[in-house]
């Protein structure tokens, strides 16, 4: 656009200028192609209790407010992304970015399985999730942000203190994953108005690779190494939170190009 303005005639420059001004006047920016992104929920500042605070770290961390998509990115949305960005199509993706399972539940490069449009996209790598988020002008949530929102129940921001809350999550963890998960907004929204933090899929976070398990050298290594063994939850801040422990263990087993049939993602964004 800048080039166009610089090199075009004064009248066209004026026309473009007026158009830009008028566009700003619209409540929603409209630009082709029209992709429907998921609505963003405003999350206020809050306190987050890391499951594995380092030795030198406080037990509670202040988390600045942010925006989070109310549901996971769907197959339909991801399809829009790969149509516009062919290098992220199944047959073309670089193996650095995704393993062979990438989008394997799709019928073809740009063809979804029947009735899967509104299901969360799965079989996506961290690189692919991050590329979508960047393309959408958003980002992946941090681990702290994701875990903070995941603690909420339907009625409170700190649902994990509620009776039966963890059991509900653990029951889901014990279930066999269907080849294609149900549509997003599977269950009622949580306290923040965010859907399906549990019960539908596992989700990528930006710093999934911050769980230190190998080659770690600093003082807290013993604690972090415990992530892989069963006694690890004893060293955590909240031994009762076995569900969070499982998520940490799962993330620590991931590499950025891995895809699994029950892992997808949702985007976040900074508060303006």
């Amino acid at each position, binding site marked *: 656009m800048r080039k166009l303005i610089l090199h075009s005639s004064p009248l066209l420059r004026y026309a473009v200028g007026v158009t830009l001004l008028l566009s700003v006047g619209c409540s*929603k920016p409209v630009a082709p192609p029209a992709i429907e992104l998921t609505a963003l929920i405003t999350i206020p500042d809050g306190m987050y209790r890391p499951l594995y605070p380092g030795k030198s770290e406080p037990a509670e961390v202040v988390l600045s407010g942010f925006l989070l998509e109310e549901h996971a990115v769907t197959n339909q949305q991801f399809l829009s992304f790969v149509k516009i960005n062919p290098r992220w199509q199944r047959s073309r993706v670089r193996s650095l970015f995704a393993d062979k399972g990438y989008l394997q539940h799709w019928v073809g490069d740009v063809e979804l399985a029947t009735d899967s449009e509104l299901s969360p996209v799965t079989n996506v790598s961290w690189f692919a999730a991050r590329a979508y988020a960047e393309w959408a002008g958003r980002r992946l949530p941090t681990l702290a942000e994701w875990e903070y929102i995941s603690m909420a129940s339907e009625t409170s921001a700190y649902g994990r203190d509620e009776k039966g809350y963890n059991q509900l999550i653990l029951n889901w963890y014990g279930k066999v994953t269907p080849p294609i998960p149900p549509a997003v907004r599977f269950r009622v929204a949580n306290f923040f108005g965010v859907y399906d933090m549990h019960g539908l899929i596992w989700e990528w976070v930006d710093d999934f690779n911050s769980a230190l398990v190998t080659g*770690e050298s600093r003082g807290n290594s013993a604690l972090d190494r415990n992530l892989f063994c069963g006694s690890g939850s004893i060293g955590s801040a909240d031994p009762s939170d076995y569900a969070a422990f499982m998520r940490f263990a799962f993330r620590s087993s991931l590499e950025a190009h891995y895809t699994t049939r029950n892992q997808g993602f949702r985007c976040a964004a900074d508060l303006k």
Partner: protein
Amino acid sequence: MKYIFTLCLLTSFFSCAKAEPEVADCCAAAPEAADLSDLPDTSVYLVDSKWQDQTAAELRLNDFAGEVVVAAMIFTNCEYACPRIMIDLKEIEKKISAEELAKVRWLLISMDSARDTPEVLQAYAEKNKLDTSRWTLLHGDDFAVRGIAAALGVRYKKDAKGNFGHSNIITTLDVDGRISHQLVGLGAESSPSVAAIKAECAKN
């Protein structure tokens, strides 16, 4: 020209009038950079990110294509592990012949976006007596750092004081940016790393 003007006005009115759901104002195609198309599928240079070296010169990872690269991720405020990585790297350097050294680029990638500015990296290079014709120190933003760490399999975590826990990995890359060898852990027996560097030099 008048038509264009009218068309623009019409378009903007039209777009205002429509009741659109939330629509991306972004979402243009982001194709792979042309000069990356010849890279093999596992080249870490495909993680196309922007960096600055210790002189604040802008560069991309693909600028190192054609050289054998020995890379490690560090942060200069590190008191324990990173000095040890430097010792390990220098031990490896000693075992490489002068002829081979001419083909090798030593890359220190800082994970500390906030503090390791080009100036700080320059000072670190001087303090450690690094020959910057063969050693390059990289500063990038959080997005760039997280991306290359993911490609190299380096795990790291920032703590409340702004320091980092991280894996200690010395990676040898071939001239196309493919991982040839990774030496994991501090003070590890370096001969496999040396052998990998020599082998990559011999190929080119």
